[in-house]
């Protein structure tokens, strides 16, 4: 089975682009499955189902969604293999813009949209910086110049990536993208022993443990204070 992880800010077009690409692959007889990781709520499973793609969803609830992802991706991979998929796509929203739950040697795609502002590529962090493929969506809503400026911003942050423009509504570019997602020669049997491309933060403070009261005396563990004196 092939495994691809897709991440990107909320509403950047991850589901739209994934479904359009999957439709192209399914036409060629490739069996595609999906898993959606989210925090509190998602309707994406319905969208995948409607497209005829078997899907599982995992909600992290009060846990850090990226930690939740890592603790579950192995089991999900086993599920995909058992179901006999040729390709399993894992979609997760980049919720704090810091982490990239990308796994070494597993194809990593970051989806961002042209509307998110020209400084966004700089702000996203490893999720963008460490992706193999960066998909830029919603080019239909902006001008050619804005597309070029945005793509240049992405390029400066991740010069090694393949950068593709895809329209999540019409599917323009999705066929081409789909050819990069699936490779017959790749066979993944398990994720056991694989490593993350990037370590996650080890922050553990009283609020991680359920504290709700505000105030110095309730704060324990790994606490950091904003510097209000620093000149910008």
């Amino acid at each position, binding site marked *: 089975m092939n495994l691809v992880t897709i991440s990107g800010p909320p509403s950047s077009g991850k589901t739209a682009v994934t479904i359009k690409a999957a439709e192209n692959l399914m036409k060629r007889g490739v069996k595609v499955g999906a898993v959606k990781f989210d925090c509190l709520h998602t309707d994406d499973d319905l969208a995948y189902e409607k497209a005829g793609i078997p899907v599982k969803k995992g909600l992290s609830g009060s846990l850090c969604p990226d930690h939740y992802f890592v603790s579950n991706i192995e089991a999900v991979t086993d599920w995909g293999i058992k179901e006999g998929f040729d390709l399993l796509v894992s979609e997760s929203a980049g919720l704090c813009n*810091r*982490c990239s739950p990308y796994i070494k040697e597993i194809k990593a795609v970051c989806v961002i949209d*042209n*509307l998110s502002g*020209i400084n966004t*590529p*700089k702000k996203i*962090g*490893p999720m963008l*910086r*460490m992706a193999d493929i*960066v998909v830029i969506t919603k*080019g*239909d*809503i*902006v*001008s*050619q*110049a*804005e597309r*070029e*400026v945005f*793509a*240049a*911003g*992405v*390029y*400066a*942050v*991740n*010069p*090694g*990536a*393949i*950068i*593709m*423009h895809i329209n999540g509504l*019409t599917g*323009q*570019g999705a*066929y*081409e993208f789909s*050819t990069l997602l699936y490779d017959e020669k790749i066979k993944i049997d398990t994720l056991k022993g694989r490593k993350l491309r*990037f*370590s996650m*933060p*080890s922050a553990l403070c009283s609020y991680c443990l359920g504290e709700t009261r505000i105030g110095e005396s309730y704060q324990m563990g790994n606490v950091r204070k904003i510097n209000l004196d620093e000149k910008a």
Partner: protein
Amino acid sequence: MNQQEILRYSPKELLNIYPFLEAFFAGQSWILKLDQQQKLGLLLEQVDEEQQEDYAFDKADFIGQLSDFISQMETFMGKKDKAVETLMVLPGQNKSGEAETFSELIFKTQTITSIVGPTGSGKSRLLADIEWVAQADTPTMRRVLINNEKPDTSWRFSGNKKLVAQLSQNMNFVMDLSVIEFLELHAKSRMVANSDELIRRIIDAANELVGEKFERYMPITSLSGGQSRALMIADTALLSQSPVVLIDEIENAGIDRKKALKILTGEDKIVLMATHDPILALMADQRIVIKNGGIYKVIQTSEAEKAMLAELEKADQKLQLLRMSLRQGEILAE
């Protein structure tokens, strides 16, 4: 410069040698806040575990990307790719798997090709084949050659080298910038040195296309539909790196369409235009008829057709004048 060499320079020295690194460092700006005089190697040695975690930073990864970026930018700026002069499409098949019957389809710089056919007939697929420089690896099995050769794959994957620029029907900008700031930003992203003169030319060219001129300090979001369109066209003609420009219908509103096409062809672009407007279609040198996902016909615009154009333009002008009088509350007369 290889990875080892990079480490022997300070961030400040690196910026002096490679001004384009500003964009790269901006993503890791805390590094520049460190002592800029120190060699990068030394600086990185001092970055501790906590900082690595805080800034989601990985030293090896950073150095790798920095050296990739430098070498790619050097090739990008140093090597002048041979200009794209012709694009050739070799026949494939339509949606039913029947072979396309044209022998070859050639697009040259400075020429205009119109594309006609009902929605869903395969216009976007043709465009996508060109953009992807298809090599019999898309559903149409078409092949695309650049300057009569099989092109290399960098056209497919690179972020700053795209074959096709698109002027879609969308006429809005979303950035909150003035005309001049917007053009400066675009020029900067393309690493254009001394962009002032070029920017002035773009604004002049855009203003040639519209009745009501706009000023350089106006916010781009406040431009009228026609003005936005004019600015997009002039900017794409003069500042976009893509040799092919696809236009998705130019409405006959507030913009001189003939001049707009002239600006594009004058900048050595290959112009493709999806349109069902006879005036625009006749302005093209050739037209492609698309049917059932395939190229059904390639028609060269004949002298007889061109002769019709003059007539149509006259009728069109008359219609425009009448429209204007109507708007101004006048009585319509011959």
